């Protein structure tokens, strides 16, 4: 027996070591699971992953892509908005886990374009030819800071309008016709006054708007300068327009106009369905979100002009290809297809995504488009008008974090925890922490 035992110990030890080594190996390689494997030959089966932060209604476009690329399989994955962008940051920094095509929203685009060496230069794949299609400012947002590299191609822009519930307006004795409603609020101050009338009418279970954060964002977006100046200095704390937007939003909250629902939270979804608020700021893509989140409210909505006289961009997305991807050529071709004229036209009618190709603003499919869900509102005309009036604002590197700080500040006022002054002061302290 003495002979047997040492014999057993050796393989056992080997097994132990093997387990430890594989455990480490799989731990380290875990993040890379999403990336496609091996250097592929052209005809070989290829898997492309596309990472998005909501349903972009891309599915029919993938099918179209597969017609010309039968060897490509496309896998889409979605994460919550903030998570998506945070994940992307870590994936780029650690060099593993990013998808072949990544969606980057306008609030984050300036965080990612300075990391030019982490992305494929789409100029190398012939996409520079698309420049003529695009709104100039949207094109520039996708360039590296020195302008030499093309890192992302735009999908949509977020021209602004105001969506409202005709049924609730009627109950409160306000006009319901979209022309007259637009006249109710030439300015945000007038919007607040109209809200006071609505609140005074005491429509059961309904407030004037969902929450102050998105209104604040819209007011800031309409200013010539937002949170950052052109040199990427954080000026949010000293910019009078930001302070004005904050004070105005806080006043609306104090006038009891807010339904106190944070945008895109589950209670907000419920509120949309149950009619907890009468108006909601509508970048064009949000017409799609409302339709997806509250399908039973069809016909109860309409769309009017945004207070503050048009202008302002909220959101909009770029598609980018991280250098971790093994199939840049196919990724670039997919990006090209997902952002071309036909795709943008289709995404407008399907998902309310306003094209970033200005030639389409005069396309009869768009100008004549009436949105059935929104009481046949001519959203094509409303949003293209907004897009034409749009004065783009420079978006700085940490605009998303800045917006979160102010959003929290307004919620503190909303929850009665702080006065607007105290809350503003704390928001400024939070800004100092943003590095």
């Amino acid at each position: 027996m003495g002979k047997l035992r040492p014999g057993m110990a050796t393989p056992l030890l080997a097994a132990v070591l093997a387990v430890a080594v594989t455990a480490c190996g799989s731990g380290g390689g875990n993040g890379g699971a999403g990336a496609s494997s091996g250097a592929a030959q052209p005809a070989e089966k290829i898997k492309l992953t596309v990472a998005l932060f909501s349903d972009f209604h891309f599915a029919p476009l993938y099918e179209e892509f597969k017609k010309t690329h039968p060897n490509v399989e496309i896998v889409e994955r979605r994460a919550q908005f903030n998570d998506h962008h945070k994940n992307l940051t870590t994936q780029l920094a650690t060099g593993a886990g990013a998808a072949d095509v990544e969606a980057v929203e306008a609030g984050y685009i300036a965080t990612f374009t300075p990391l030019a060496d982490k992305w494929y230069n789409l100029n190398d794949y012939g996409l520079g030819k698309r420049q003529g299609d695009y709104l100039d400012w949207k094109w520039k947002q996708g360039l590296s800071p020195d302008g030499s590299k093309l890192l992302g191609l735009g999908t949509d822009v977020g021209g602004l309008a105001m969506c409202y519930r005709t049924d609730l307006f009627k109950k409160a004795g306000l006009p319901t016709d979209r022309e007259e409603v637009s006249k109710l609020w030439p300015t945000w101050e007038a919007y607040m006054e109209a809200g006071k009338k609505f609140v005074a009418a005491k429509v059961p279970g309904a407030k004037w708007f969902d929450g102050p954060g998105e209104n604040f964002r819209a007011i800031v977006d309409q200013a010539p300068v937002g949170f950052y100046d052109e040199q990427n200095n954080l000026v949010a704390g000293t910019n009078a327009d930001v302070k004005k937007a904050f004070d105005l939003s806080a006043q609306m909250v104090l006038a009891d106009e807010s339904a106190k629902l944070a945008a895109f939270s589950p209670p907000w979804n419920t509120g949309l369905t149950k009619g907890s608020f009468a108006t909601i700021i509508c970048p064009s893509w949000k017409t799609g979100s409302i339709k997806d989140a509250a399908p039973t409210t069809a016909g109860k909505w309409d769309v009017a002009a945004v207070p503050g006289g048009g202008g302002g961009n909220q959101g909009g997305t770029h598609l980018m290809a991280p250098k971790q991807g093994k199939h840049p050529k196919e990724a670039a071709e997919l990006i090209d297809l997902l952002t071309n004229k036909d795709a943008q036209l289709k995404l407008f009618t399907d998902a309310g995504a306003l094209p970033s190709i200005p030639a389409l603003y005069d396309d009869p499919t768009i100008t004549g488009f009436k949105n059935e869900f929104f009481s046949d509102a001519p959203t094509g005309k409303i949003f293209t008008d907004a897009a034409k009036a749009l004065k783009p604002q420079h978006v700085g590197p940490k605009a998303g974090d800045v917006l979160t700080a102010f959003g929290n500040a307004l919620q503190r006022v909303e929850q009665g925890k702080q006065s607007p002054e105290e809350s503003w002061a704390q928001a400024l302290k939070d800004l100092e922490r943003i590095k």
Partner: protein
Amino acid sequence: MATRAPDNLAATPSLPPVRHRPRAYRRHLVHRLDVKVSPYAYVAPFFLLFCAFGLFPLAYTAWVSLHEWTLLSDVHEFVGLDNFVTLLGDDYFWNATFNTLSIGVLSTVPQLLLAIWLAHLLNRPLRTQTLFRVTLLLPNVTSVVAVVVIFSQLFGRDYGLINWVLSWFGVGVIDWNAGTATSHVAISVMIMWRWTGYNALIFLAAMQAVPRELYEAATIDGAGGMTQLRKITVPVIRPTIIFVVITSTIGAMQILAEPLLFGTYSPTGGPDRQYQTLSLFIYENFVKLDFGYASAVSWMMFLFIVVIAAVNYLLTRRTRGNLT
């Protein structure tokens, strides 16, 4: 046979080893190695894994915490204890500490009392005993995400079930998420839902080892159910109680998923950080990619856990009964 000699030698160690035969000596050496080294090989898997995933991260975190360390920058400047100095003066850190302790006490204390009581109820001949025991464990095997999502809806302000029930008793609309106390209660309820049954099963296992004669004697002496629980069960299962208290406390110190999901993914734990726990505070700095600071918070949290576990141990050790 001569080749079997080393075996016999090992069996009777008083005999001197046979030194004149090199071959036998080698066998003897192998055997000695086997006896001395093999046990270490058998326990090695745990220690190897622990070093790789426990000890090394712990030490490396300490190293990172001494640096200005962000993910996107390749330069990691050594700053000594600066991160800890900043941390001790950081209101948000102390706020998170308070929240963690508050949620910890609110969830752990009722949870353990409830668990002992449940175990006591089950520690008697019952029909469908297994069914009851499995039921106890069900909340624990449910995904934490599912639990928090459902409970967040139950605790909803406008359309939540709990507010609806409370409205029958004339209680006004409670914004559970907004208040400090209310949000702590809501999160504690989620934790209790998941862990009470699990702890009850551990207590039950311990209770079944308590000698029946003690209860019989107590019954003859006229002691009721509660007295028996207090005077017999609790003192006898004291080691198990200490174990459960310490594991629950450590668990409570590390609460992350509940507040994160309760605030719909907001790492600040509500707009006023009213339910941001220490783990969530680490997570907030982690997603900001400020690894140096996040590591410093992690180490402070580690120290807190050590201190609290020690205090816990001392306190629970003092609840010594008369029996032991």
